[in-house]
């Protein structure tokens, strides 16, 4: 019994360690500047001044739109194109199938440090720097998504496909109308992993975007922090951080189980 109580105490300490900083961030962003310094989670006054400061100092609404637009486009492309390649690898016959699969596995092992600089050069040559294209196109396919789709589609019974083919359905119809509705788990997994990676990515936007009106959320907030625009106002830093964290935290609170399972499964394979 004592051991059990001790266990719960330890787990609750864990709750404080992992949860408290986020609660402090959200509460702090809503407190008057004077009161943020202390560790208390309660304040006499509710204040939106910090948010007002963020919205007037940096184009954060625009950055929010940019991030949403980029992350949703990337996620859609990765799911659609990834499932097409995954389907071809799992269910179709074509020359070079084995080689292609090995190639995809190989790309997953390349450290990004090698390709980063030449990819930037490519963006410059194509004239894509400071455009949405540079943020979307280079991440529109991932090896991991193809591998996950292929693995899932392999388990779809061949008889189902043959029946549809006899009825004269095209492969396109079979994939998007027949198999997609059966594939919700893998689609959700790929979508979550891709959206999260795209929303949180900051290195690549730092490299290809210099124009403030095209910056993504994490990039703009990072520059806000180091560029001194926050003018040591802790409240506006916390407000900016909250705006950056909130979409993912909200998505996470709805799809918590999916997030954890997706990350764990990709971790094991990665």
């Amino acid at each position, binding site marked *: 019994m004592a051991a059990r109580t001790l*266990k*719960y105490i*330890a*787990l609750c300490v864990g*709750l404080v360690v*992992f*949860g408290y*900083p*986020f609660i*402090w*961030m959200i509460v702090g962003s809503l407190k008057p500047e004077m009161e943020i*310094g202390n*560790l208390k989670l309660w304040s006499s006054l509710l204040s939106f001044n910090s948010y007002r400061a963020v919205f007037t100092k940096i184009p954060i609404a625009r950055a929010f739109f940019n991030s949403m637009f980029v992350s949703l486009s990337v996620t859609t492309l990765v799911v659609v194109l990834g499932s*097409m*390649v995954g389907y*071809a*690898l799992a269910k*179709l*016959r*074509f*020359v070079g199938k084995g080689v*292609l699969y090995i*190639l995809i596995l190989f790309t997953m092992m*390349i*450290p*990004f*440090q*090698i*390709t980063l*600089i*030449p*990819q*930037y*050069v*490519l963006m*410059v040559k194509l004239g894509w720097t400071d455009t949405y294209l540079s943020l979307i196109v280079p991440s529109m*396919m991932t090896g991991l998504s193809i591998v996950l789709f292929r693995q899932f589609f392999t388990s779809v019974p061949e008889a189902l496909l043959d029946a549809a083919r006899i009825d004269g359905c095209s*492969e396109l119809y079979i994939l998007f109308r027949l198999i997609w509705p059966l594939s919700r788990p893998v689609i959700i997994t790929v979508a979550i992993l891709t959206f999260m990676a795209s929303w*949180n990515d*900051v*290195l690549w936007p*730092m*490299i290809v975007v210099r124009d403030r009106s095209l910056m993504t959320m*994490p990039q703009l*907030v*990072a520059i806000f*922090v*180091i560029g001194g625009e926050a003018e040591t106002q*802790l409240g506006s*830093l916390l407000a900016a*951080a909250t705006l*950056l964290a909130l979409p*993912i*935290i909200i998505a996470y609170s709805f799809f918590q189980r999916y*997030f*954890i399972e997706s*990350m*764990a499964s990709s971790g*094991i394979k*990665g």
Partner: protein
Amino acid sequence: MSSPTNIFRRFKRSDRTAYVFVLPYLVYFATFVAYPLLFSLILMFHRWNIVTPMEWIGLKNFIRMFGDPLFFKSLVNTLVFLAIHIPLQIAVALAIALLLNARLRFRSFFRAVYFMPVVVSGVVVTILWQQMYLFDYGVFNSILTSIGLPRVPWLVDPSFAMPSIAIMATWKNVGIYIVLFLVGLQNIPGELYEAAELDGAASANQFLHITLPMLNPTVIAIVVLSTIGGFSLFIEPYVLTGGGPMQSTLSGMLYIYNQAFYFNHMGYAATLGITFALIVLSVVVIQRKLIEAEA
């Protein structure tokens, strides 16, 4: 193996749609994987500021690198980070996983909260920890002074800064590894413990001789993933310390970034990128060999 006529026959028997389905990937692969790979091999033999024409300089980038104290500094910094981050990560993740691996109320709630830093942007985490690490008013030093201990110069002292970042990174990532350990723990057959129980093995011995060896694959995964993560360390030092104090948090990725985008040394940055990539790959291979040999 397959003669031209054979390939032709296989081509005729194949599903035409398949080529349409994989074509986008082939274009993508050629443009964003193959071309950059080849181009980086060319870049490393050149001096180039991206504006004026490229200038062939042979192996000078490599010669420069081997005489560059900052290259070695960034490599050592990364190793310092890994030396603290990996053991800490494994210890904390395993401890929490063992706590959670039981019938508990609110088990999934605990797990969900511990996992939260994983999904949130590194920029958010860095902003929060910057406040917690403050010398005068940060949470950590407030706690330390309230129990009569001296303040720790978390981010202001060169010998503390990288360990501080390693602790922060552990807090951010440990959720993934808790889940991986939980999966690993649940895959251990219960009969093993029953048999040990019958033989009268103490629970400490059961842990050492059953639990730990059975978790070996999970440990390999964690070591490899953390190593790759350590070599990609960028935004944390970029925002938190700018690589300072005294270059003590200059990570490999941050150094590549500075060379490429502050100094426009594209050729040298590509050389550093290739070198760091080769180091990551060889470290990961060696780790796997070592851990597998150990088991």
